[in-house]
C-alpha cells in the first residue's frame, strides 16, 4: 500500500488528494492481490499435480504447453469457462448461487493483510492478524450455504463436517498465535515481521520451545482450516462423493477450487509472517524481501502437499478428538508457557 501510494504521489504530484491517493493505491493493490491469488491458484494446481505425480511415481500433466504441461491449468480454466452452470431443481437457488462468491471473496479479503515486503501490503491494519482470522471464517459460512442450499445429502454432510471442523480448528489456530502477539505486543502484520529482524535465531518459531510447539500447532490446524488431507473430510471423494460442492459445476465449482488453493497459500503466508520471519532472510540484511517471503510460503505449501499425498484420512470423531483433546489443551499450555518463559528470562522480545 505504502509503495503504491508513494508511486501515485510521485506520478500525480499534488494532483490527487490524500483520499484519492488512498483509493488509487488501494485499487491497484487489490488488483495486484487478485492477480497474485489467481496466478497462485494456477501455479499450485499445476504444482500439486506434479508433486503428486512425483510422489506417486508417475508424471502428472505432460502435454499442454510443451514443458511438463505448464499450461495445463490454463487449459483447465478455458474448459471450465465453457461448462454449463447447472443449478439443481430442488436447490435453494439464491443461496446456492451466492455460496461460491462468499468463499471466494472471503479468501481474497484475507489476502489484503499479508505483508509480502516492506510497505507492500494492501491493507496495513493495526488489527492485521485478527482481521485475517475474522475474514477467513467467511469460508465456513460459504461452505454451510453451499451444503444446505444444494439440498443434497452428501453436500449437507460435507457442509456439517466442514463447519464443525473449521470452527473447531480455528481455536488452536488462534491460540497458537497468541504467544507471538505476547512477544511483539502488536497485531499489525508488519510489526510482527519487523520484530523478527536479525537472522533465523530471531524468528518467532525459534524464540523458545513453547513457540516452536505453537508453530507446529498452527501448521496442523491450518491444514485442517483449509480442508486438505489428511483433514479433507468435508469433501472426501470416497465417502461423501464430493462433499459440499457435489452439485456444483463449471465456474461456480471453479470458485471453490480457486479458493482452496488461495487459502492454502494464505495460511502458509500467515505462518511465514507470524512464525518464520516474513521477508527476513536467514541471515544478513533484507534482500529481495518479496522473493524471500514467497519462497518460504511456497516451501510450506509444498510441505502441505507432501503431507496430503502421504497420510490417510482421519475419521470425523478422530478429527474432533485431535482438536479438542490434544490441540486445544496444548495451545493453552503454550500460551501460559510462553508467558512464564518471558517472565523467567525477563526479556520482552
Amino acid at each position, binding site marked *: 500500500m505504502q509503495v503504491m501510494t508513494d508511486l501515485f504521489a510521485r506520478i500525480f504530484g499534488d494532483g490527487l488528494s490524500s483520499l484519492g491517493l488512498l483509493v488509487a493505491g488501494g485499487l491497484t493493490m487489490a488488483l495486484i492481490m487478485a492477480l497474485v491469488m489467481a496466478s497462485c491458484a494456477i501455479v499450485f494446481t499445476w504444482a500439486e499435480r506434479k508433486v*503428486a505425480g512425483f*510422489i*506417486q*511415481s*508417475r508424471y502428472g500433466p505432460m502435454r499442454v504447453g510443451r514443458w511438463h504441461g505448464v499450461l495445463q491449468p490454463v487449459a483447465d480454466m478455458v474448459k471450465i469457462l465453457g461448462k454449463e452452470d447447472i443449478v439443481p431443481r430442488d436447490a435453494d437457488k439464491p443461496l446456492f448461487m451466492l455460496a461460491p462468491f462468499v468463499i471466494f471473496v472471503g479468501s481474497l479479503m484475507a489476502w489484503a493483510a499479508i505483508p509480502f515486503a516492506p510497505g507492500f501490503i494492501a491493507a496495513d491494519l493495526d488489527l492485521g492478524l485478527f482481521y485475517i482470522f475474522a475474514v477467513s471464517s467467511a469460508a465456513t459460512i460459504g461452505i454451510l450455504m453451499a451444503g444446505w442450499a444444494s439440498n443434497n*445429502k*452428501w453436500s449437507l*454432510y460435507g457442509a456439517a463436517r466442514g463447519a464443525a471442523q473449521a470452527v473447531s480448528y480455528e481455536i488452536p489456530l488462534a491460540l497458537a498465535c497468541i504467544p507471538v502477539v505476547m512477544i511483539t505486543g502488536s497485531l499489525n502484520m508488519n510489526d510482527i515481521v519487523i520484530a523478527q529482524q536479525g537472522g533465523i535465531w530471531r524468528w518467532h518459531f525459534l524464540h523458545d520451545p513453547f513457540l516452536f510447539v505453537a508453530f507446529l500447532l498452527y501448521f496442523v490446524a491450518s491444514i485442517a482450516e483449509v480442508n486438505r*488431507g*489428511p483433514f*479433507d473430510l468435508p469433501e*472426501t*471423494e*470416497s*465417502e*461423501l*462423493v464430493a462433499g459440499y460442492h457435489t452439485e456444483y459445476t463449471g465456474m461456480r465449482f471453479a470458485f471453490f477450487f480457486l479458493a482452496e488453493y488461495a487459502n492454502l497459500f494464505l495460511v502458509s503466508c500467515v505462518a511465514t509472517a507470524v512464525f518464520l520471519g516474513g521477508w527476513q532472510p536467514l541471515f544478513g540484511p533484507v534482500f529481495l524481501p518479496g522473493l524471500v517471503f514467497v519462497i518460504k510460503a511456497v516451501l510450506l505449501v509444498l510441505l502441505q502437499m507432501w503431507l496430503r*499425498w*502421504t*497420510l*490417510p*484420512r*482421519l*475419521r*470425523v*470423531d*478422530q478429527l474432533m478428538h485431535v482438536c479438542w483433546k490434544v490441540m486445544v489443551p496444548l495451545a493453552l499450555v503454550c500460551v501460559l508457557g510462553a508467558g512464564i518463559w518471558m517472565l523467567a528470562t525477563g526479556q520482552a522480545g
Partner: protein
Amino acid sequence: MSQKLVDRLRAEFGERILETGSQHGDESVVVAPADLPDVAAHLKGREACELLLDVVGVDRSELPGHRDDPERFEVVYNLRSLSRNHRLLVKVRAPEGRDVPSLAGLYRSADWAEREVYDLYGVRFRGHPDLRRILCHHEFEGHALRKDYPIERGQFLSAPEKLIQDHEIERAAHRADDSRGAVLPSDLLTVNIGPSHPATHGALRAEVLLDGETIVEARTEIGYLHRCFEKEAEDHTWAQVMPYTDRLNYVSAMLNNCVYCAAVEKLLDAEIPPRARVVRVIVSELSRIIDHLVCVCANLVDLGALTNYWYFYNVREGLYYDVIEPLCGSRLTTNFTRIGGLGYDVFEGFETAIERNLVKLETAIGEVTGLVARNRIFLDRTVGVGAMTPEQALDWGFTGPCLRATGLAYDVRKHAPYDGYETYDFDVPVGTAGDTRDRIMVRIEEMRQSARIIRQALGRGLPAGPILADDPRFALPPKEKVYGSIEGVMNQFKLIMEGARVPAGEAYGFGEGGNGELGFYCVSDGGGRPYRVKVRPPCFPIFSAFGEMVKGLMIPDAVAILGSINIIAGELDR
C-alpha cells in the same frame, strides 16, 4: 472320511436318508424337505459342518430321466467342515409350488443363497426371514433360470426399491430418541450409498439410515451388474462358457478360467498334462497377486491414502503388460485355459518377465507397508473396524482372506489341494481380530506367499510336453490333423458345433479364488451344453454380511469395510 460321514448319517437317520450318492468324489445325500432342518442341524452340531458354502437350485424338467418327475426342483445345500475337513451335498427335491424349509435360522449364509434360488427358480423357503428377489429386479416377472423361461425374453424395469421401509425409519427414530434421553431429538436420514458412488467400486447399493454420522440401519441391494451368466452358460457349449468366466471376477480372470476348467474336467474325469498343471498354478497365483493388489490399493484409496494406489497399481500394470498380455493377448478378459489344459503355451522369456515383476512387487509391498503398517491414522481407522469373530465369519459363509483374517487358516489349496498345490511349500497367513487391518495385512502377506509358490514352480523348471490333453472327447485336434485327416476334421467340427460331450452327472469343482472359495457346480445331461452351471462367488456371502457389519459404525468405517471385503460386482451379480 466323507464316506464314513454318509454312513454315520445313515446310521443316525436310517430311512430318512432317501438316497446317497457319490460322483467324482462329491458325496451327497437326498432327504425329504421335512427332514432337512433335522439333518442340517445334526450336521452342523455333531458333524462340525460349520460352513454352508452355497445353495444351488436345479430345474430338472428337461434333465433326461427326470422329465416326468413330479419333483421338478432340486435344491442342493453345499456343506463343509473345516475342523474335520469333510464336505457333503445335501439335496432336497420339491415339486412346483411346494415349500422347502429354510436353513436361514441355522446358517446366516443361507439367507441370500436361498433368496437367489427363490429368485431364479421360484422355490419358496418356509420360515425365511426376508424372501425377496435378489439378482433380478423386484418387479421382474417369472423365474429366469427355469428351463421354460426363454433366454431372449428381456424385461425393462427401472423403478428403485425402497430397502428400508417408512415404518422402520419411524421406529428407529423413536429408539434413537429414547436412547438419547434428555438431549434434543434429531431426524434420521436415509442415504443411498451406491449404485453410483465412488466407494462402491462397481454397482452395488446400500441404503443406510443415518443418525448424524452413525449408521442405524443398513440394507444392501445387488443385481445391478447381473448379466445372466448362468442362463447364458446353459445356452452355450462347455467350451464357449470360458470367456464368460473372465467376466465374473474380472480382476483375476485367470483364476476363474482355471477353476471352471477344473470343474468340467472333474465331470469328464480328465487328466491334464503336467506342463498345463504347473502353468495353471503360476497364472493362478499371479491372478491372486493382482486381485490382492487391486483390493488393497483401492481400500487404501478409500481410507484417503491415495499414493499407495500407484505403488501397487504399477506392479499390476507390469504384470499385465509383461506377463498376462503376452501370454493370452489381452489383459482383463484372458480366456486362457481350455478344458483339458491351456489355450496357449508360455512365451519366450516368461520366467524372466515374472521374476522381474516379482521383484517390483516386493519393493512395492515394502513401500506400502512402510507407509501404512505403523501409521497412527491408518491404525486408528482400521483396527477394530468391522471386526468379525471366527464363528460369525463361518456363519455368514466367509471364505478366503476375510475368513483367514479372523484366525481360521482355511485355504482350499491346503485343505483340498488341486493342481499339485500339495507339492509347494507355502504358509497360510492368518489374522487375529478379523478387522479391516487384518484383512489388509492378510492380503499383503498372501501376495508374498503367492510369489513364493511362483518362484518354486519356476525354480523346478516347467515340465516339457503338451499343454492340452490329447483326448478327442473334449480337446480340439491340432491344426495338422484338422487339415490332414478326415478324423481330425470331423472331430473339430463336432467339438465346435456341438460341444464336448460331457458325461451326464454333476460335480462341484472348486479352488481358492482371490477372494475365497470359488466353485462351479456343474450339471451335465450328457449333451454338449451345460445343463446347469452354478457359480459359488466368494464375495456373495461376504457381502451379505455387510449390512450387519456396518451397523453402529460411521460412513467412513462403512467405506473402509466395503473396500476390505473386496466386493467384485462382476462375480457378485454374475
